């Protein structure tokens, strides 16, 4: 057996601020007692649902954020990285999901970024020569003079790999490297990975695609909700077992499901293409119905929601609202007509963070509440108080600034904003992301209550248990289109949904 080169033990990370420092006085853990050990010449797969802590763990290894508790041993030596340079120097290469090359520089300049050859002036010719050698060694056909901007994503990825290899990395982290690659490109990537293995490099590989894992992986570690579930050899890989490890718990008491779908059709989408080459999407939502949309991040769920809501260009297709064809509506027009969209991104798109709770709650209903343009502070405060009571928002009062609230309470403020705007169809994009368990249950109760009042709900979610327990119907999306519609709630299982997402 190959020797172990990296051991991460009992790694705990508390929720942190923009500088990676733990937020004062918090006891919210995003990683709790996690283990990871990587052997020489192995491809170690890291898997888990969204928010399971994979990226956080890798950020610790990559020196982007420090860990709070636990130990990291690299080549037998205990380390605590405080910046990425230190981890690079120790032989850790990180290929991020969002590639971070300088688009305006050429390939060679990127490869030698920060380590240019030459003293006062960089020796371009030498850099090009060495770059060409490095590229050839890995079998890439890229001209080092090409500006990175002109390369395809796949080629950019290759440059990243060359960069990681050229810095004599012993461990290379690949965060969803195949997310934007075609099959041929994936095959090439795997060839390179095998090649790297032969050269003695270990790889930590994050991916969701099961078929790939079997092909390339040696061992696999599963994380769930920031905790460590287990590590298995790929020889023991069973699809069902791994899915079981990924999803684990069943929290059925959290869910309220007392609503009944009614007959009236609220929204119908026909042949909507969210990209120029994607397969058209058809979907319907009825009164009092909770329709779930499952799928992986990047499957086009948010794009679909934004296309409907009129904040994103789409490529053909028709939208019917209450039976009438509508086109080219702005968010303002949709909101006036009762269609609202709770965004996935709470802090940038959902809330005006420095503004008060009441300012945020009334923001979407200003025109309805104050048709003569004059604000009535008393009316505003009353509405905010009503929402604070109804949604049990923990705060000092309606005038408190939203950026001082916890994530769950912030989310409830966003919900309050849409509730007070009287929705007829509410699109929820990851309504419980970054929200603790207690607040989650409250949000489910609110969603159920809305549906009981006849509001149609379209709920995008990456949490399978949430989809299964809340939805009356589920559409699963994959590669920019709906890959399956599941009509029978009794048949909703995590496995059946996952089967359509992967």
């Amino acid at each position, binding site marked *: 057996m190959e020797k172990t080169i990296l051991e991460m033990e009992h790694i705990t990370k508390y929720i942190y601020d923009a500088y990676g420092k733990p937020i004062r006085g918090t006891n919210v853990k995003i990683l709790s007692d996690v283990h990871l050990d990587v052997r020489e010449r192995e491809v170690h797969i890291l898997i888990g649902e969204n928010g399971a802590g994979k990226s956080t763990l890798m950020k610790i290894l990559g020196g982007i954020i420090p860990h709070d508790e636990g130990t990291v041993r690299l080549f037998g030596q205990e380390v605590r990285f405080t910046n990425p340079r230190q981890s690079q120097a120790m032989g850790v290469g990180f290929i991020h999901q969002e590639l971070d090359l300088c688009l305006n520089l050429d390939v060679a300049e990127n490869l030698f970024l920060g380590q240019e050859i030459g003293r006062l002036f960089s020796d371009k010719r030498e850099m090009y020569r060495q770059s060409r050698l490095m590229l050839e060694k890995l079998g890439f056909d890229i001209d080092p003079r090409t500006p990175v901007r002109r390369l395809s994503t796949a080629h950019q990825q290759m440059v990243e790999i060359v960069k990681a290899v050229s810095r004599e990395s012993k461990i290379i982290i690949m965060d969803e490297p195949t997310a934007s690659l075609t099959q041929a490109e994936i095959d090439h990537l795997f060839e390179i990975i095998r090649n790297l293995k032969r050269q003695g490099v270990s790889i930590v590989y994050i991916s969701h695609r099961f078929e790939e894992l079997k092909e390339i992986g040696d061992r696999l570690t599963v994380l769930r909700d920031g905790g460590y579930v287990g590590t298995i050899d790929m020889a023991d890989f069973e699809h069902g077992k791994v899915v079981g490890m990924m999803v684990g718990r069943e929290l059925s008491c959290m869910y309220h499901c007392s609503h009944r779908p009614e007959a009236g059709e609220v929204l119908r989408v026909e042949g909507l293409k969210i990209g120029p080459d994607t397969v058209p999407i058809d979907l319907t939502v009825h009164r009092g119905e909770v329709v779930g949309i499952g799928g992986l991040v990047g499957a086009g769920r948010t794009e679909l929601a934004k296309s409907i*809501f009129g*904040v994103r260009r789409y490529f053909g297709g028709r939208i019917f609202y209450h039976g009438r064809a509508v086109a080219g509506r*702005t*968010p*303002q027009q*949709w*909101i*006036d007509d009762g269609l609202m*969209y709770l*965004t996935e991104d709470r802090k*940038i*798109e*959902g*809330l*005006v*963070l*420095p*503004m008060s709770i009441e*300012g945020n709650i009334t*923001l*979407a209903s*200003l*025109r309805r509440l*104050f048709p003569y*343009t*004059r*604000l009535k502070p008393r009316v505003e405060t009353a509405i905010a108080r009503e929402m604070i009571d109804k949604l049990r928002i923990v705060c000092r009062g309606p005038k408190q600034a939203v*950026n001082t609230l916890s994530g769950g309470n912030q989310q409830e403020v966003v919900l309050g*904003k849409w509730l007070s*705007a009287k929705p007829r169809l509410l699109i929820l994009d990851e309504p419980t992301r970054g929200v603790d368990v207690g607040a989650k249950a409250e949000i489910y109760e609110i969603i159920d209550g809305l549906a009981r009042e006849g509001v149609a709900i379209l709920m995008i979610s990456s949490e399978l248990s949430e989809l299964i327990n809340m939805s009356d119907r589920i559409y699963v999306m994959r590669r920019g289109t709906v890959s399956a519609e599941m009509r029978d709630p009794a048949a909703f299982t995590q496995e059946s949904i996952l089967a359509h997402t992967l």
Partner: protein
Amino acid sequence: MPIRRKISGFVKNNGSVIIILLLVLFASVFVKNFFSLRNFALLLKQAAIPAIACIGMTIVLMTGGIDLSLGYMIGLSSISVGLLVKTYEVGIPLAILLTLLLGLLVGLFNGVCVQYIRVPAFITTLGTGYILLGVAQIISNGASINHMPDVFLALGKTKIGLLNTTVFISLAFCLAFYYVLHLSTYGRSLRAFGLSEPASRLSGCPTARLNVSVYMISATLASVAGILLTMDVNCAQPTMGGGDYTFQVITGAVLGGVSLYGGVGSIPGAVLGVISLKIINNCINLLNVPYYWGSAVLGIVILTAIIFENVKNRKL
């Protein structure tokens, strides 16, 4: 801690009031002839017209934009109203109306460039500013127009007690825009837009229209300022206002606590900021500080104000 927070909160919210109180106190003690009714009346008269321009600038700054063409718009509107009244002998009400309309159109152009063509406000208004200056000089051949009709002058220069009508016109604008910015849905949407464009757009605020409207307000108020200035000096000049004026107005707004990053600011603050600026000028004059020192002092004031703003915004 709570007391400290209370004090810091008060300083943060009332920065301009504190600045002006300190300035008045300091000036009253150390500057001869400062503390007199006549001097105060003079101060108000000096602040009245820049205050109107500053309201427009404040509203643009609320969106996170900036209007560098404001000073040149003053020049263009001055010469326009002068030409219309004297050369083309258009009736005074119509002349004023046309000049305001010109401001509205210039603002529309600025707004459309910023919102729809996505040219940064800084560049757009810098460009249009020079165009306006050019146009003003072309239509006037670079010459000023003196001796405006008495009826025209009377609109701004009639005394009511110690003060000019200009001061009261300015006050009316301040009150009207206090309503607009602080008591209306327009002002609320504007604030939300300035603090977070995506969140306000997705909450149904008409962000595109808001963004265009602020430049229209700014340029129109600059026209008002240009007309009033023409009355004040009894002379229509194409070079009235100018870049220097723009920067004075921005300084006033920043002194009054308006953030250059958008979303933060108030009309009373902006007006007090302008008055503070005029107090500083006034003291420089009264103390017989050499003329050339004036701008250095102003520069120090601007930097101090911006540093103060940054520090206070960092410590939430």
